[in-house]
């Protein structure tokens, strides 16, 4: 029977460990699944774009490519220090976005699927949380973030 593996809410996907990128935005630690990250590069000055789209009001040039900027720091109500910034390339179906993060180089972590806690309510874009080190870190998804904020 084809549905057998989905019984009890378990799928082969859910059983796999989650590969997460841990980074910080304005001092707040967040995690994102690696498949939603396209890379990390030095931050280049963003150009403000007049916009009524929530949290999307700038573009950043990366070589010959122009990326829209998602202002995650504003959503989290923090500020990324101006002198030390990195650009996290966020993968999305309709094209990549740039997210400004702290200069701390993001790290990779494998987390057992069973260790992922359900998303706390009232945190847009958060699909779960997990303990990394001694810290409970929210796991963000760009898709979920988009649905809840734009």
């Amino acid at each position, binding site marked *: 029977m084809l549905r057998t593996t989905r019984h009890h809410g378990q799928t082969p996907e859910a059983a796999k460990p989650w590969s997460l990128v841990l980074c910080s935005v304005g001092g707040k630690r967040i995690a994102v699944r690696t498949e939603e990250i396209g890379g990390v590069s030095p931050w280049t000055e963003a150009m403000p774009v007049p916009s009524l789209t929530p949290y999307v009001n700038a*573009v950043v*040039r990366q070589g010959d490519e122009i990326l829209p900027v998602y202002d995650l720091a504003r959503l989290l109500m923090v500020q990324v220090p101006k002198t030390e910034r990195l650009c996290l390339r966020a993968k999305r179906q309709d094209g990549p976005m740039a997210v400004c993060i702290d200069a701390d180089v993001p790290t990779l972590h494998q987390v057992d699927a069973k260790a992922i806690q359900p998303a706390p309510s009232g945190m847009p874009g958060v699909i779960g949380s997990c303990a990394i080190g001694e810290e409970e870190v929210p796991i963000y998804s760009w898709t979920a973030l988009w649905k809840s904020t734009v």
Partner: protein
Amino acid sequence: MSLRGRRDNVAPTLGTMQVLVVACGRTYLAIPGAIVRGVVEFGDAVEARIVSLFGEACRVTDLAARLGLPPAVLTPDMRIILCGEHRARQAWRVDRTLGIEDVDLQTITPLPPHFVGVEQSWFTGMFLFRDTVALMLNAGWLMSQSMDAFVAKTLAEGTMLEEQHVLAQAPGETDEETPPAAMGGHRLRKPTETAAGEAASLDVLESLVLEESTDVEDNQAPWADA
């Protein structure tokens, strides 16, 4: 100073679009050259609230403020961009002009789909400009803006009231509110204080009459050398 910079005397070629690149704060905006009728760059003019183009009054609008950016602060670099298309007239105040560019149409990309608001109607695209990016303003949107028709109407009403006021006076009698005589091609006009409520609410302080260059139709962007 020529706005053409090092591109002096280079005519636009097929597949390119001539634009005037201006800055509003840290945002670079490209105005299609086809609608640009002039650039006002002398000191007093940038403070004008109303300008006249082709004999029609139009209100000077702060482009940054209209786009929701922090409004411009008066500086010597500030310019008023006069735009016209068909019967529409617009005058936009910008922080500064950066020059004319012949932009290869193939290098203009749409605004990313992540921008889902009304801004998609403000810009037709964007392109790499110097070490940053410039946003291509939608000429249709730019020309459809504002209150200029309203202002023109109220100014016309003001003028009518002025004329009625003058006619009502005895011949030879002077009127302090009569517009001063032309001064070097730039005539200052104050709307009458007797103009009805709408005009008063516009806070129209002065107008600057500008005439278009005679060679405006030669497709060589006469405003470029302003």
